[in-house]
């Protein structure tokens, strides 16, 4: 039992950056095609990260490095906890902790763009935090356990009980994956009002660590999407993969369709969506129980 857990965790640690990087490249290819461009090669993100790793790292202060390293380690830990079959609530608590570390890295630089990015990132966390916790609760309602290991042995896919949670989660994924209209904390392009927000004062190896952490995060998020479909039946894994692909494509599409909104719009919209979809779903489940 312990051996399988460790093997799963190690597999995640090794495979996640490969999958995450590829997905990230896929995202860029999709985006380019939607905009009628040729776009970069599929493995461009890997080239980018290798290049960053070989560059000289300049830092604003030494605490920054500590926070960024902490961010990467905590993100990897979170993902490993999830894929090894741990407690969903703990996964999300660890996740918010890793995010806080990243925000602290930006705060510590005292640069105006970094701090603005940090404040916005915190605001984004406030937006999606309710939903991530609700997802764990939703799974508990559906299958009576917080443990991922028990959840994947379900008889019926969780989506049958908690479709509202699924919609809410896909919605907050826009924030989590830093997609427009909710990419307030960082922007993809250097010339925008945020410069690069959260990561403005990071460079070289440090920036590479952040990229790496975001790949791990991406895989974790997609794993949670898959969780909605997985049952004890092996065929369900196929469904899960299809669902993950659809959601991923949808996120890229949304990214290309909408311009960035103000933070207060984001707060209002996300909280409303969460309340309406997940809240109603929770209410119905409670009545049926």
């Amino acid at each position, binding site marked *: 039992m312990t051996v399988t857990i460790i093997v799963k965790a190690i597999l995640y640690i090794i495979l996640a950056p490969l999958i995450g990087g590829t997905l990230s490249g896929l995202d860029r290819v999709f985006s380019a095609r939607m905009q009628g461009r040729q776009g970069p090669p599929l493995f461009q993100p890997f080239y980018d990260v290798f290049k960053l790793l070989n560059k000289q790292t300049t830092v604003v202060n030494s*605490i920054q490095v500590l926070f960024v390293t902490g961010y990467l380690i905590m993100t990897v830990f979170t993902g490993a906890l999830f894929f090894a079959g741990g407690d969903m609530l703990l996964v999300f608590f660890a996740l918010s902790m890793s995010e806080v570390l990243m925000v602290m890295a930006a705060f510590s630089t*005292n640069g105006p763009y970094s701090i603005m990015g940090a404040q916005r990132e915190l605001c984004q966390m406030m937006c999606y935090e309710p939903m991530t916790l609700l997802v764990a609760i939703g799974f508990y309602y559906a299958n009576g356990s917080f443990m991922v290991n028990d959840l994947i042995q379900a008889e019926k896919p969780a989506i049958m009980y908690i479709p509202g949670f699924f919609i809410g989660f896909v919605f907050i994924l826009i924030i989590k994956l830093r997609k427009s209209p909710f990419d307030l904390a960082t922007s993809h392009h250097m010339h925008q009002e945020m410069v690069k927000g959260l990561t403005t004062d990071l460079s070289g190896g440090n920036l590479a660590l952040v990229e790496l952490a975001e790949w791990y995060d991406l895989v974790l998020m997609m794993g949670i999407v898959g969780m909605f479909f997985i049952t004890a039946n092996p065929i369900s894994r196929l469904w899960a993969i299809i669902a993950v692909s659809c959601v991923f494509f949808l996120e890229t599409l949304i990214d290309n369709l909408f311009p960035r909104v103000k933070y207060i719009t984001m707060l209002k919209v996300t909280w409303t969506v969460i309340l309406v979809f997940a809240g109603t779903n929770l209410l119905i489940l409670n009545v049926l129980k």
Partner: protein
Amino acid sequence: MAIIIGLLKYASPFRSAVIMLGGFTIMAAAIYVAVNVLMSGDTSQFMYLEDAEIPNHFIMAGEVFLMCLVCFLSIKYKKYYAILISLVGTIPVLWMDLSGNAVEGSTHLRIDTFAAVMYLIVGIVGILICIYASGYMKDYHHHHTDVVDRSNYFLALMFVFLGAMFGLISSDNLGWIYFFWEITSVCSFLMIGYTRTEEAVNNSFRALWMNLLGGVGFAAGLMYTNMYLNMSNLSEITAAGASEVIIIPVTLFAFAALTKSAQFPFSRWLLGAMVAPTPSSALLHSATMVKIGVYMLIRLSPVMQGTLTGVMITVIGGFTFFAASLLAITVSDGKKVLAYSTISNLGLITACAGTGTQEGVWAAVMLVLFHAVSKSLLFQTVGDIENCMHSRDIEDMHGLIIKLPRLAFIMIIGICGMFMAPFGMLVSKWAALKSFVESGSVWLVLFLVFGSGSTLFYWAKWLGKICAVIHQSFELEDITPRSEMVSIIPLTTMIVIMCFAFPWMSGNMVQPILSEAFEGTIENVIGGSDVIIMMIMVAMVFMIPIGSRILSIGKNSKMTMSYVAGVNAGDDRHYIDSFGKERALYMSNWYMEDYFGEKKLLWPSIIVAAVLVAVMLIVVVGGNI
């Protein structure tokens, strides 16, 4: 009893050495008693005090004295409404005692595991605050020369307060609890009014009338139990199980507890309590006053399970948790943020106690423990920062890690203790969430998830302010006296130790409380594998800084200035714009006042909560009489 008498003896004018000595003696006594109780393993420890004639008279005299004191001060400051409430609360109880309608119960004192745990909180945290106060008051009067130096009186009050706390925790007789209850109300009133400015007097009377109103509720419950149910002891009520008659006094006691623990609609007294010197805030917020309310609720929680009272209490608690955390976003005064966070956390504890499930009580007790330590530490650090920098505004704490590294570091640990993942608060929040889900209360789950989003926001932005590293900034003189460090350092150590020790605490302190409250064996609330994972997380949090020090990560990187879209003038606070002028630059935190501001949110939430309380009282009390 010996402890109380010992305390009162020390409560005469004395110097800080005496406080230290006296304080540590009391602390040692409290720890000794608590450890004895915890180690005995006996889940039903009752210390009988049957022949209670003389103490009863003593307590009656005390009640009359308190009433007269309130009347005198009310007339002095022309706040006549306080007299009325005080009379309404005290006279019927006196009449009941004198006319022989009171029931003589067999036990007057009870010391069980829960009492022992509370002893530890009051004994250690409370006494440390007193020690802190002895140094702080000197500095305080150094800075505030306009306030008359009555620090002896203030320190004496603090010890009386702690004495009342010990008394309240040990008592089982409701009449006695009522007496100690009123002492804490009056003491807090006197402490808030310490500076005698107009604001202080107003705020202190607000605290007084709200708490006395709770006292009236308590008195009504007390009379009802004595005269209709023939019960005189708290343990009889909790043992009686939920029934229609028993729920009336329970509701009244719960109402009193809501006022004490400053839930909406009664929160304003705790916010007003900020005007007093910091030690009293620390005392009111962490170890004493507000903890009485939740202590009472946790005691009552087995009876409240599944009743309308329980549901209403959880809803009020959950609502308070959410609303107070939104309000905390909008204020920048350090003490005020702490005050709102106290209200918010107490809301969570109240909600947990109201569910009446085992997980709920487990989470509530854990939250009480962690909150007491972290909050008193934070208040003390804010007080010290105020003494060093003459401001307690969070905006002024920008770059604290360079200016006052020692205090900043302590503060970071305190703040992390309040909301970060492996620290205790989150463990308890995790249990709270489980208990809410199990009790099937949808609203509560929603309040909790949204509330934890906003909680994260206001703590993290404060943490960020502290962590900002500004170039060309220099260390300020740290004038924190040694006596304050004597208090702060143990508290910091305790937070760290408690992170590692929580499985042990759960097994040896909280589980026995559960088996006392619910009678019978209780399965472990927190499972094995989760504990291991949490331990790994705690270890990682402490390993990352140490490991990076050893591996010297980032030591050979090139240093640069932060990017300001202009030329950084060299200190991160000025830049040279495109016209070659040097301009100042400052990044403030977000407060979102237009959306969650006090002006906008405070009164509506008070009104909503007031309606909830009224509904609870009318339906439960009115419907069952």
